[in-house]
């Protein structure tokens, strides 16, 4: 058992600025833990990337699985507070994280073309209107509001996955049923020849959450 990262350094006030880890976060942690042996012994990553790192809980946990300093753990978030808190969470758990404030992976491509061995994204997935997503001033609302079908940010990310993943790379994505996970898998297969499976799924209240795992045909 790998312990959940310690978040004692964060106060209730911090959670007004950054997404507080919830069932979705923990499902992603469980998925990574389930794949721990595979990640350590088969993927043996050099560069990992998490998009939308929030508190940094997920990448810290990944660092614990891999061992600090054995891979570069890059974390992006569009929210500068999240970037700062991500680095702090790593530090408090003795895991070096490298935060970048940016929209998705802007500034990292094409430099990191086909270079990412482990890619993780717990996206804003809640079904809202497009206006909730694009007109909202609230930094916290942006952390979960996903627009139509909850897919508006996710769909921007999908074409980038193929650009980022290395030959041996894997991508872990959290979705809910309303995001039409089957359709996402179809898009990835038809457009980018990426294979997929449902690695874990769980009911959180009325929300059916699942972790999809994607990889290249060539594996």
């Amino acid at each position, binding site marked *: 058992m790998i312990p959940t990262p310690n978040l004692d350094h964060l106060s209730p006030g911090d959670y007004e600025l950054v997404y507080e880890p919830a069932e979705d976060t923990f499902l992603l942690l469980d998925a990574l833990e389930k794949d721990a042996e595979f990640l350590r012994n088969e993927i043996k990553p050099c560069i990992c990337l998490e998009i939308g790192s929030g508190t940094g809980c997920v990448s810290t946990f990944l660092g614990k699985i891999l061992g600090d*300093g*054995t891979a570069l753990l890059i974390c992006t978030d569009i929210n500068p507070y999240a970037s700062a808190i991500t680095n702090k969470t790593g530090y408090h758990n003795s895991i070096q994280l490298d935060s*970048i*404030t*940016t929209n998705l992976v802007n*500034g990292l491509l094409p*430099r990191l073309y086909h270079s990412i061995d482990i890619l993780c994204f717990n996206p804003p997935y809640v079904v809202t209107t497009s206006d909730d997503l694009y007109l909202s001033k609230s930094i916290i609302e942006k952390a979960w509001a996903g627009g139509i079908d909850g897919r508006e940010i996710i769909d921007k990310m999908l074409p980038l996955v193929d650009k980022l993943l290395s030959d041996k790379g894997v991508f872990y994505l959290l979705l809910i049923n309303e995001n039409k996970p089957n359709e996402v898998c179809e898009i990835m297969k038809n457009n980018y020849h990426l294979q997929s499976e449902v690695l874990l799924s769980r009911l959180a209240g009325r929300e059916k959450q699942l972790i999809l795992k994607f990889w290249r045909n060539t594996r």
Partner: protein
Amino acid sequence: MRLVTHNMLQCHVKGCNSNNFPLQLSDVEIEIQETDFNPKFLRNMLSKLEWNALVKTALEINITTLPNVLPNDLDEEFLKMLHRVLLETHIKQGQMICPNCNHTYPIKDGIPNMLLSETET
């Protein structure tokens, strides 16, 4: 921001597609933070680095220990020196300027900010 991360960043202003890497460091405040030495990771990382860009960037902050050409024999002494430059040298404050379009990206409290306004993307 560690120099290893800087080595991954390029300008992404709309239309700025060439000579946009490495971003030039300016007005920087540097801090050394020690971390465990892992030669295996460094060897792996070398294949992912843009060496010329790293050398150029290091010189901008007066680090003159990197050879212009990556040596064939990566002995422990070389890897320890690289470890210091790549993984222990943190840019705490400063700016990164695109050599092509001059766009400036700030680094605040050790975090590079690559966000652009709507009109720039």
